[in-house]
């Protein structure tokens, strides 16, 4: 049995004005377990707190009930008081007789009656309280960044700069991501390669950073501070450590007709290839689907020309297991497929291209060496039509498009239009838009320059259909301002395709037990206050995997995620919330119902040996809650039919005792 002390606060006249505090403290004296009951003007004041501390000593109290303002106000205060008095802070319960009693009821009699009942409920609960001690867990001081685009690169660099080791896992043969494919960047028009490749080199040279390129995460176990991750290093058939990236093998490779994914299939590469000149790591990779040697054992030319002897046709996928304290997701985005947009004739005409393809066409390292040409005939295009919001803000057909705004298209389209007009003044450039969205520093100015200085023709309206006819593209569109239908004979059409999260994100989210929205973007822990954290502790978000973002935003979020990671890794131990779920192994039947509802993946299962009544032993699967991960919502406690799962601090018995006290 507890020895409970009850302390009724007047809160000046805030409580005492409508609640007879004396009557409350008298009434609660008779409750089971209560050995001391008093009231005072300001319980939260130093004098009030001292009163509690003295009473604890004098009456050997084991539990404290404070009838006062909301626990959201002073629960922490009184817990500290209890700790100072030498009892466990979780032996304190607050009866909210101000916000939920004296302030909402006018009549002294009603207010007092209710305050007594709320006090009784708190006493009933505290009688069942047990001392709770927050759990501690160590922190592995290493971070994992999944994805090696600009988001991953920036996060890794920032974490490494703070002195913590970081590993980057990138599924492509090189880091760099989408930014490496871009030509210029808005709104300043610096060349993407010029600002990105130095960072890639930094990554390569940073002693704290390891790059696992051509690799994927295949399994994640553990929890914040203690993740166990398995990384699959796909066989690239080239020994990374020996390859110098000289490119001799690439030159000699006879398989020359492999569509080059870096240039979005607009030209070809060899079966052995280095994606681009500044690739990091700059090592060759053999495409097993294209290589004759790997397919039917005939060729072996590259091995013969490789001076370093780096070619290894027998290389196997390698699995690496590593421990991490924090994981950053930076899986990025892709443009959506244009196959289903029949009206824009993307599948019918080579001269209807996406904006990313346009980037490659204008890039000096691209398939046309930076010369803007029509992909169909290599001719110089004169009339160019840009169509915005292709698949963005598209609610009607979920298979085709996305309901959200892709955010970056307005700006890059303005950039493309401007650059085209700048380099080829003989062109006529139309941009069809629904809205031009330019919230960002120097963004609107940039767009206006395209119109005012470069003479890009912005048309408010949408393209309804495009029909290839001869070597022209018949573009039919509406001009809403002029209230007319436009018919343009275009040479080239550029579609601003919506962007979507990378396909690898969904299975990754499952592995990480991190939540996602219906569009497969990772959900943040709080949309305003915790934008770079996933609800799953220890998992952080960087870049477009969380939502559409441009480069400046991505980089700032990458830095923010890094700061959060550094904050976590800087700790030696993590203190948990002690009000967490706990499974009674003797009652648990291992059915996994609780794990299904846990938003944090805090519940795992283990096979445990139990001694049975008939002196045999039995191995049963039982749930184990990781207190470092559990946040204490209690969803599992209701999902568990046997009641094996209970929540410390809000136990079934405690809540039922409160119900009983209120209803009697």
């Amino acid at each position, binding site marked *: 049995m507890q020895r409970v002390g009850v302390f009724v606060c007047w809160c000046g006249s805030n409580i005492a004005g409508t609640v007879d505090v004396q009557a409350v403290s008298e009434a609660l004296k008779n409750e089971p377990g209560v050995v001391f009951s008093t009231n005072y003007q300001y319980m939260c004041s130093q004098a009030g707190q001292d009163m509690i501390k003295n009473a604890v000593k004098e009456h050997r109290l084991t539990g404290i009930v404070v009838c006062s303002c909301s626990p959201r*106000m002073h629960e922490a205060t009184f817990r500290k008081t209890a700790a100072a008095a030498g009892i466990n802070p979780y032996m304190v319960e607050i009866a909210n007789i101000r916000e939920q009693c004296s302030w*909402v*009821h006018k009549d002294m009699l009603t*207010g007092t009656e209710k305050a007594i009942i709320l006090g009784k409920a708190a006493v009933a609960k505290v009688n069942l309280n047990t001392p709770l001690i927050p759990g501690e867990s160590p922190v592995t001081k290493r971070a994992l960044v999944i994805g090696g685009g600009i988001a991953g690169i920036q996060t890794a660099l920032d974490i490494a700069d703070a002195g913590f080791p970081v590993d980057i896992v990138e599924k492509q043969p090189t880091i760099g991501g989408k930014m490496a494919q871009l030509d210029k960047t808005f709104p300043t028009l610096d060349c993407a390669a010029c600002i990105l490749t130095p960072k890639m080199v930094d990554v390569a040279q940073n002693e704290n950073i390891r790059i696992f390129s051509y690799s994927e995460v295949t399994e994640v176990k553990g929890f914040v501070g203690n993740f166990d991750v398995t990384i699959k290093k796909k066989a690239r058939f080239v020994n990374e450590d020996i390859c110098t990236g000289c490119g001799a093998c690439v030159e000699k490779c006879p398989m020359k007709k492999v569509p080059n994914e870096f240039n979005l299939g607009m030209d070809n590469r060899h079966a052995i290839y280095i994606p681009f000149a500044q690739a990091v790591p700059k090592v060759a990779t053999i495409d097993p689907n294209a290589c004759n040697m790997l397919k039917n054992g005939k060729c072996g030319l590259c091995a013969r020309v490789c001076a370093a002897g780096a070619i290894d046709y027998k290389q196997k996928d390698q699995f690496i297991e590593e421990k991490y304290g924090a994981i950053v997701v930076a899986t990025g985005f892709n443009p959506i497929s244009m196959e289903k947009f029949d009206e824009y004739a993307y599948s019918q005409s080579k001269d209807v291209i996406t904006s990313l393809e346009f980037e490659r066409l204008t890039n000096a390292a691209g398939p046309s060496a930076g010369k803007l040409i029509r992909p169909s005939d290599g001719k110089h295009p004169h009339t160019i039509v840009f169509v915005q919001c292709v698949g963005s803000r598209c609610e009607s057909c979920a298979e085709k498009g996305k309901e959200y705004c892709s955010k970056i298209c307005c700006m890059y389209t303005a950039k493309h239009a401007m650059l085209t007009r700048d380099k080829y003044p003989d062109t006529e450039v139309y941009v069809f838009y629904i809205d031009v969205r330019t919230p960002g520093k120097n963004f609107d100015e940039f767009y206006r320059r395209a119109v005012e200085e470069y003479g890009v023709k912005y048309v408010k309206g949408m393209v309804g259909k495009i029909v290839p006819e001869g070597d022209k593209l018949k573009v039919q569109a509406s001009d809403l301002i002029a209230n007319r239908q436009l018919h343009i004979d275009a040479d080239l059409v550029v579609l601003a395709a919506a962007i979507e999260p990378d396909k690898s994100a969904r299975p990754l989210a499952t592995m990480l037990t991190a939540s996602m929205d219906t569009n497969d973007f990772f959900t943040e822990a709080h949309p305003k206050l915790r934008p770079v954290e996933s609800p799953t502790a220890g998992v952080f978000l960087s870049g477009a995997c969380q939502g559409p973002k441009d480069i400046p935003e991505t980089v700032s979020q990458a830095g923010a995620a890094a700061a959060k990671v550094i904050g976590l890794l800087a700790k030696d131990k993590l203190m948990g919330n002690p009000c967490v779920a706990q499974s009674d192994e003797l009652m648990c039947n291992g059915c996994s119902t609780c794990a299904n509802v846990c938003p944090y993946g805090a519940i795992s299962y283990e096979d445990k040996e139990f001694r049975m009544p008939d002196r045999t032993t039995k191995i049963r699967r039982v749930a184990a809650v990781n207190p470092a991960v559990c946040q204490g919502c*209690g*969803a599992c406690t*209701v999902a568990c039919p046997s009641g094996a799962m209970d929540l410390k601090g809000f136990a079934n018995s405690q*809540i039922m005792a409160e119900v*009983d006290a209120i*209803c009697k």
Partner: protein
Amino acid sequence: MQVNEYKPLIVAFCCNWCSYAGADLAGNNRLAYPADVKIIRVPCSCRVNPMFILRAFQRGADGVIICGCHPGDCHYTSGNYYTRRRMAALFSMLDFLGIERERTRVEWVSAAEGAKFAATMNDFAQKVAALGENKRLEDLRCKK
């Protein structure tokens, strides 16, 4: 006892992050609601076990209301979605057994909705009062 004196006993389970704070805000703004509403704080609306609800009715409650964060706003990301399903099923079952459906309710009240909290409680108390005492889920032993 006169009929018009009858005051229903109402148990309100409020999640710590939104609805309990909403109730506090109602207090801050001095928005009155019947004193017969007694609040029990739970970390999340998904902590509310159907057994607690039946227990309250057994012990003499006339109405039980569960308040949580608005769907999508759950502090624990998905707790209130489970509440929504569980309570939809449970309340439908109570109705199936002939227990008045107006005695149970789920309401989403955010920390900013003090006025909604008070209005909800006033409305609920009134509806429950109109039904009269809970006879169908009571345990007469508790009346002794």
